[in-house]
């Protein structure tokens, strides 16, 4: 299988400066979620700017779909249509006087006819949940809304790979989680997503593959669990392990937990402790998880369920589901990290409802099944 994007021994130095990238080799598979993790100054942004040819390696090469990037104007145009880049600082990326004009900037420049531009922009704004914002000037929006506009501007060009530089920087936790939720949605629609971050917690929960960088080099590549349990490596990159990992290591060090199988998330950690303390997992009294696809006719079924009082908590995954909840005036308890939270509720014996749509229904079912296998618990899933 060809990689979506590949770096082969990439070196880079800004004019007369020291090398800021020193032999980077990374292969990103199609449809993967990859996080570049490292401290400021590790060279993450420089590397991201190479994904679409904005910077050119001084040595080594970048491959897109198995083909080495060329740097003539015509090839770069093609590359930039295929690889979208969302900057850390939304202000630098939003330059048009209105949201609509900003999102339409790419499509118009690609020479799309006017009505196609209209439909593409409408679609992109719909996907990021900003319908109704068309005429607003971007610089009057909140940080999270600006980020969404920037993402819509890139989505409007329908890229295969989207690259995010520190997507959650200076956003508050809830907004950050919603943006991450949006990134997942983008990924579920079949796009490869690469992001850079110094937020270890974020990478830990989100990424399929983590690339640990420091001082222009790749220290290690692997799954989040494997990478983040190597404390010495993290220390070298001036990063802290995720809190859950830190607690696990500390308890393992005291002989309270077994060293094998570091937990992948908070849910796994609590299960681990529970098994250790009680000698087993609590086998019964689990709650049920309802999953609703917010398509046609869903409103009635959901309302009936809610009015019956069997459901204690409601979560929405994805922009469409959130808009559905807004339209139907359903109060949401969870707007991010929904599946894990509902699993935690179920373990505590409460019933919950997940509103979602399209491919994310299957994803949810799969995730719950995986948890059941891992934990040995039985949780009832009701699709409606």
């Amino acid at each position, binding site marked *: 299988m060809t990689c979506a994007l590949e770096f082969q021994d990439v070196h880079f130095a800004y*004019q*007369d400066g020291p090398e800021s990238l020193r032999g980077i080799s990374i292969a990103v598979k199609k449809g993967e979620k990859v996080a570049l993790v490292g401290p400021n100054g590790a060279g993450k942004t420089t590397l991201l700017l190479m994904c679409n040819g*904005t910077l050119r390696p001084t040595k080594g090469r970048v491959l897109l779909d198995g083909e080495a990037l060329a740097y003539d104007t015509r090839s770069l145009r093609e590359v*930039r*249509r295929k690889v979208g880049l969302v900057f850390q600082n939304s202000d*630098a*990326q939003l*330059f048009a006087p209105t949201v609509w004009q900003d999102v339409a900037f790419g499509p118009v*420049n690609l020479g799309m006819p006017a009505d196609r531009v209209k439909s593409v922009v409408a679609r992109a704004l719909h996907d990021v949940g900003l319908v109704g914002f068309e005429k607003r000037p971007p610089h009057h929006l909140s940080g999270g809304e600006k980020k969404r506009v920037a993402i819509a501007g890139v989505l409007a060009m329908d890229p295969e790979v989207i690259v995010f530089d520190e997507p959650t920087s200076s956003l508050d936790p809830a907004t950050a989680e919603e943006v991450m939720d949006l990134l997942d949605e983008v990924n579920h629609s079949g796009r490869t997503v690469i992001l850079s971050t110094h937020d270890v917690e974020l990478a830990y929960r989100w990424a399929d593959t983590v690339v640990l960088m420091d001082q222009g080099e790749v220290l290690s590549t692997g799954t989040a669990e494997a990478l983040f349990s190597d404390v010495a490596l993290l220390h070298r990159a001036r990063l802290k392990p995720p809190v859950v990992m830190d607690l696990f290591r500390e308890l393992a060090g005291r002989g309270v937990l077994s060293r094998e199988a570091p937990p992948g998330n908070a849910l796994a950690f609590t299960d681990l402790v529970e098994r250790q303390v009680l000698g087993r997992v609590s086998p019964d009294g689990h709650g049920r998880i309802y999953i609703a696809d917010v398509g046609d006719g869903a409103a009635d079924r959901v309302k009936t369920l809610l009015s019956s009082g069997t459901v204690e908590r409601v979560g929405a995954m994805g922009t469409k589901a959130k808009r559905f909840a807004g339209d139907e005036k359903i109060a949401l308890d969870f707007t991010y990290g929904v599946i894990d939270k509902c699993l935690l509720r179920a373990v505590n014996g409460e019933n919950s409802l997940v509103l979602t749509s399209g491919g994310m229904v299957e994803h949810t079912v799969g995730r719950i099944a995986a948890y059941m296998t891992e934990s040995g618990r039985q949780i009832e899933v009701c699709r409606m």
Partner: protein
Amino acid sequence: MENILEDHAHRSALRHLDTRLKLLVGGGAILLGLLSPSPLGPAFIAATMAAITVGVARTPIRFYAHLLTIPLSFATISAAVILFLSGGGETLWAAAIGPLTLTATTGSANLAALILARTFSGMCALFFIALTTPMAEIFTVMRSLRLPREFVDLSMLIYHFIFVLIGEAVATRNAQEMRHGYVSFTNAIASFAMLAGMLFVRAWEKGEELIVAMDARCYDGVFAAGEETEGASRRQIALVAAYLCLCTAVAIAARGATIF
């Protein structure tokens, strides 16, 4: 545009040399070049200033070579005009283009050569100042020369904002290019106008932010002057004097020399 010469000044090997001395070398070389009646004096100055900047101040040679191309186009076009306009002496070359006859004479050729040489000597001396002296130290000298306070303060603030705005401009320009903002002439014009407009709005906001930041630190109309560099040693002063004398001597010795 990311090539601000000052960034190199901070890495220069002559960075810590007394500022006045550096200004004296550069300024003296500019004036001597300008006052030389023959192209040989300026040529000598250009060559030595370039050698000092690359050899002693350790400016990367490739970068320096690139810099020399900046004055090239203006200097050659304008020198060409002079070549065909002015006169004196024998005709070297003449050609008829349509109704026009272009004539170059020894006098005009010599004048053009002089102008070219002076331009390069002036630019090399200017590069010397630009590539060895951080702006902050020039501000200190401006202060000690008793230039009007408002003028120096304004210069310092403009200096600060140049870097802030360049950062934003470059980032936005990148963002536009990624979304194909400069693929055709008309969309390039539109993109550039958007960039400039955004930059203006952003600049204005920054100005207002600065007022708050200055007031938060009790702004009362004063800016701190920089600290003086530790003075020049006698040896350094002697070397500079010797260099400028040498330049003067060469200029005087070669005063009658012509090329054509």
